[in-house]
């Protein structure tokens, strides 16, 4: 997994790749905690290169989501690949997160707020 942080304000972009699972989740949580305090708590997680996600990773995303919202921000996702999309639909996680098809789409909608 590769975490890349780019910071065009006011959004922090986190790009992940590979397996997003129990081994990776703690690192992800730490990264998000560090970035929430810097910006107004808007985080975009790009999952384009993620081919696998498990329940621990979902729990990490949910934690991030609540954290961001408590700080007046939000956590959104974009570029979900099919295996991940399936899991989100099965578990209705797509009710909990704002999901965008592309980064560009996400930036436009978030900046508009």
């Amino acid at each position: 997994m590769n975490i890349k942080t780019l910071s065009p304000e006011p959004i922090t972009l986190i790009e992940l790749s590979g397996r997003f699972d129990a081994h990776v989740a703690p690192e992800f949580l730490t990264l998000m905690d560090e970035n929430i305090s810097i910006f107004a708590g808007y985080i975009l997680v790009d999952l384009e290169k993620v081919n696998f996600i498990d329940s621990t990773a979902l729990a990490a995303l949910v934690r991030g989501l609540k954290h961001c919202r408590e700080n007046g921000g939000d956590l959104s996702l974009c570029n979900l690949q099919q295996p991940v999309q399936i899991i989100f639909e099965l578990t209705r996680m797509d009710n909990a997160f704002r999901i965008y098809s592309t980064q560009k789409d996400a930036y436009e909608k978030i900046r508009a707020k």
Partner: protein
Amino acid sequence: MSSSSKLDLLAEALSEAQDQLLAISALAQTTAQQFDLEQLLSILVQQAKQILNADAVFMTVDINNQPPLFVDFPTNYFNLKEIVPLINAAHESPDAFQVIHIMDSVPIYILDQKIRGTGRIKLGFQIDTPQTALSPTLNLAQTITDQAKIQIENSLLHKELITQAKLQIEMEAARQMQASLLPKSIPPSTETGVDMAIHFQPASKVGGDFYDLKSHPHKGAIFSVGDISGKGIPAALLMSMTLNALRNGVRFIEDPTPKKILAQVNQNMYDDFTRAGSFATVFIGSYDAHKGELSYGNAGHSPVVFCPANGDARLLEADGTALGILPESLCESQILDFRPGDILIVGTDGFSEAENPVREMFGYKKLLHLVEELRHSSAQAIKDGFVQAINQFASGYPQSDDQTLLVIKVNEIKEINHGNEKDRPD
């Protein structure tokens, strides 16, 4: 010197060496069963004084998780205020000991050696012998220190073993407690109209999965399966709260429907789940034997497999997200025809996400195929078939998540007994 005098001297030296060997051996034996660190050191300094023929001996042990220990013989011989600065100033060499310091008119020699990574052990003795003549005594001191290191290590390991054993006992007690929260038995199919079988296997002693089964008076059965995110003790604590909240919902809500129950549990548990950084996927179902219907609610839970008696198996998707994520639950009650021969399987993702040694997951497709293959078997046989398939697939790769599987099959003959009542079909 004459040959015979030389021989006498040699004989004396040999005898002395033998005595010292015996003394060291006695030291080893006396300290072998002594697991208390301070008492161990007391024995060591006492015997060291004798073996070394010293005026006084002290030992200090300084290891990470312990307060530093100082023991001397004769007891309180050394003035701590004077000796401690000397001990601290003693040069630390990585492997072998070094003679460190000389104090007052009668010299004190300190051996300093590492123990357990960053720990230090020091042996100090006061002896009226010049350093030039000290070689045999230093060798003995080294041997004593080596012996001390072994025994100290044993003492620490012993303590650690006891702590581990206590922890294991507590975990086993927790496991039994958690198991006792779950239904003691499966309600008989004569009461519920369905054949049920359950497999429940936490990944460690305690876990975050739960299930509940009961016969629904005059109707059929109510059941639920849930999965708290995470594993081990934190998940187990939330598991008991969630299970309790669900049971209360079933019992005390007026005209309970899956929608109402899930909404109430979400409301009760939302703050706890937020604080804990967790959530719970829950499937709750209510089977009505008279109507041949299953009313259910699915809060983010999977895998849920429905296999009709004469059709293809399919996954039942969640219609609302897991409990504890949103302040209000959006789950609706769903209705499904549930007729003789139909099968419902509710598992937790420990099944669908079970991995084999090459890190492939079992996946949903296999679950669907498997239930179709086993559709003519009893609930128990279907459950056993699934468990066997998962174990074969995993082929020894350790179970990383709690695994729960509930299999429900509608009886071929619909006949429900309620104690003395008999409800026969016309």
